[in-house]
């Protein structure tokens, strides 16, 4: 018989602040972090708004002193993951190698081998300044790389040596998990799922299975991504995901989930890591528990175009993932009291999600409150799943729904329009997400 898994720690860093309290308070107050991008001059893009984690100055303050020099080989995605993991550990009241004085391992809550780590990541963009500084030393007049000058052997000038020796390690997606395992001494199963926006939830689903089958008692799980950079902005703009900014300086007026008139989504940077724990182990240490994992499911969508937008207005993979999660939980659609969907504000994607939700929930869908966070913190891609799971956990623990920000009108009577935060009786919450390639994941949490 599978073991039961609970959520016992929440760690988030996003535009609404560092730590889950700032995220929850911000959502309940209806705040948005979608403002003009400050990290670089975005005026060459038609989308110039995004959610930056401005309260987060870097990983330096979130790692043991002895580990500070490693921060220089961390892309911002990695830094967000490291911070979120530390927040989650503190929130869970855990003692790990990362919370003890340097090089001490006495008194850790768990043995290293009993802690796993599944952290989703995106395709990390190389920092353009660092790379181009090197490329510029081996450039041809027609803006190509002069390979003969780049190499250092057989007459080459060795321009590639202008890249730091550990350059590659800064951008490998598995480095989010690797740094977290090193800092906290997690020696159990460790994985890095890279399925765009579904990465975080798929990682949580995998952690659940790892704990259920007994391969670990605790897992760091979720994801992080830092998409506020020119490369990601460019890619998402040219595939038509982003809302053009126009004269707007408040992004929450642009991102309108499930509104056919929404102009698109906006990007946000975030790390969301939750601590998943075997229920009995958590009880034994007297852990505070936010929620229990009731079920998980995943599925792949039929191909629309390769970008994964369901052309038909019905995303079958999103539907199948939810149905698989319900079956795994032994629940029916009628047991779900609230839904945290991806709810991007991209009409074609939202229509696919809404169609799938209607296929699962039928006419009752209009009666189920929907929790949206994209008008507040944007689309954090691999960072989404951990954030969404943290928000759902808070909803269950507080028996409250956060406010919804919405500047328009959602279609088909969906409960996704603007509303104040309110108390609610919540037993089961569904968290679900698709991905730009067509992967889908669904997680059902239960109040404790």
């Amino acid at each position, binding site marked *: 018989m599978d073991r039961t898994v609970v959520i016992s720690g929440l760690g988030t860093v996003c535009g609404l602040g560092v730590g889950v309290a700032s995220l929850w308070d911000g959502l309940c107050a209806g705040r948005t972090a979608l403002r003009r991008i400050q990290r*670089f001059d975005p*005026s*060459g893009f038609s989308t110039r708004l995004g959610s930056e984690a401005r309260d987060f100055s870097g990983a330096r303050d979130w790692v043991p002193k002895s580990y500070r020099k490693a921060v220089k*080989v961390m892309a911002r995605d990695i830094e967000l993951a490291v911070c979120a993991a530390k927040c989650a550990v503190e929130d869970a009241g855990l003692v790990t190698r990362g919370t003890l004085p340097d090089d001490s391992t006495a008194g850790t809550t768990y043995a290293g*081998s009993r802690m796993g*780590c599944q952290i989703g990541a995106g*395709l990390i963009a190389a920092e*353009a*300044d660092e*790379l*181009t*500084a090197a*490329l*510029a030393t081996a450039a041809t007049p027609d*803006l190509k790389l002069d*390979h003969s000058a*780049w*190499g250092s*052997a057989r007459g080459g000038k060795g321009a*590639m040596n202008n*890249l730091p020796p*550990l*350059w*590659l*390690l800064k951008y*490998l*997606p*598995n*480095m989010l*998990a*690797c740094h977290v*395992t*090193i800092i*906290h*001494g*997690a*020696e*159990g*199963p*460790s*994985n890095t799922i*890279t*399925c765009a926006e579904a990465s975080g939830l798929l990682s949580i689903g*995998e952690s659940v*299975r790892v704990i*259920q*089958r007994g*391969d670990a008692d605790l897992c760091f799980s979720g994801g992080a991504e830092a998409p506020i950079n*020119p490369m990601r902005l*460019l890619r998402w703009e*040219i*595939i038509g995901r982003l809302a053009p900014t126009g004269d707007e300086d408040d992004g929450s007026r642009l991102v309108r989930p499930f509104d056919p008139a929404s102009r698109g989504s906006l990007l946000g940077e975030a790390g969301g890591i939750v601590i998943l724990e075997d229920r009995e182990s958590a009880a034994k240490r007297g852990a505070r528990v936010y929620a229990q994992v009731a079920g998980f499911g*995943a*599925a*792949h969508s039929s*191909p629309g175009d*390769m970008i*994964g937008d369901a052309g038909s207005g019905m995303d079958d993979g999103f539907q199948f993932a939810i149905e698989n999660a319900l079956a795994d939980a032994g629940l029916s659609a009628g047991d779900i009291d609230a839904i945290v969907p991806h709810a991007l504000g991209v009409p074609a994607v939202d229509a696919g999600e809404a169609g799938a939700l209607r296929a699962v929930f039928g006419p009752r869908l209009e009666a189920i409150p929907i929790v949206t966070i994209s008008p507040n913190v944007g689309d954090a891609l691999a960072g989404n799943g951990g954030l969404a799971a943290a928000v759902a956990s808070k909803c269950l623990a507080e028996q409250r729904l956060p406010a919804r920000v919405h500047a328009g009108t959602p279609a088909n009577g969906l409960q996704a329009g603007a509303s104040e935060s309110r108390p609610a009786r919540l037993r089961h919450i569904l968290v679900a997400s698709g991905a730009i*390639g067509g*992967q889908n994941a669904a997680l059902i949490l239960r109040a404790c």
Partner: protein
Amino acid sequence: MGRRVVITGMGWVTPLGHDVASVWQRLLRGESGVGPITRFDATTYSTNFAAEVRDYRVEDFIQRPEAHRHAGLNSRFALGAAAQAWKQAGLDRFTGLNRRRMGIYLGAGEGQLDFDPFVATNLASWKADTRAINTVKWAEEAHRRLAGNREIEQEPNMALSHLAAQFGCRGPASNCLTACAASTQAIGEAFELIRHGDAEAMFAGGSHSMIHPLGITGFIRLTALSSRSDSCLTAARPFDQTRDGFVMGEGSGMLVLEALDHALARGGKPLAEIVGYGSSADAFRITDIQPEGKGAQASMTQALRQAGLDPRKTDAADRPLVHYISAHGTGTQENDKIETAAVRAVFGSLAPRIPVSSVKSMFGHLIAAAGAVELITCVQAILTGYLPPTMNLATPDPECDLDYVPNKARDERARGVDLCLSNSFGFGGQNDTLAVRRFTA
């Protein structure tokens, strides 16, 4: 506990060819897939050679190749390997497959940059005086030079998307990218999904090419690559005292995994059974392997435990229970020494009696795809009774003192090869081991 999981189909696209049977013969002959890099001008690179996939055309393997016309190399390799596995499994002739119960778990790498337009975009917007990109100019250049369909294909989940589209899989789908351990981990997690009942069948494997300027550059800067440009055919020399790094390879390995009852019910033929999977993290340093190989020990130990095997025991004929280990065996000083120590720590005095070899000496290192092609060699060893050699092992290293099947394939048909382990260890300390056994009903 848990359902039995069998392999019913295998396929690969490798530097030595693109079908399992003929490439297996080349491996047993000790042939090398290594040669000068042809994809770009690497003349002055301190490593100017690699094991490239040659003469591969995706349209030789799939119908409707036009549906994948924008696909990057990873996806193209994956499609060809998956088509072979699909066919061997007999799924091309089976009409009753419940697509919602067939998933995909890959360890596919990030795609390749659209290199020349990418470089031009950066250089055109570079301000030498401030040593920074002018992002306004960058955006203007990028909008002109970069194309959406070539950019999106660089996402690491695109191989999944192409396979799902081609084969109609609607079950659970994930891609993991744990560096050099990725496809071993993908197969392990696919195995666990089937055991748990999340799917009846899975495509599992990996696909990767880092034979591009920044891929080679990144590993040169890490001093991880062999630089024996004068003798590149013998540059990949795992466990040899003179080894100086790995040789970059590329390609894809793909397997069809099925719940045993599912395979038998449709008349599928099990090729071998997956009986154990172990995953661990070194939690040590991002640049170095834990010196005793504790992480590698943990992944091997866990896979053996799940397989119900005691590594210190022998059978009635006094033969160790593990008949072959496909080593991670990259050919770096550090990996081979520590992997050897880890095998010794797990198997104790039996370790020197277990054949251990590294096909990276012939294939090069397929990075994320390495584990999948290496698991296929384990299944081939079980099916044929031959062990592939570690080539280029001329100078024994006192710190690498196991039986590496040096330089010549071994005929084990008399005793048979029944149980193999396959190791994969990733940069950053993620370790994975699979245990695969001869199928017996």
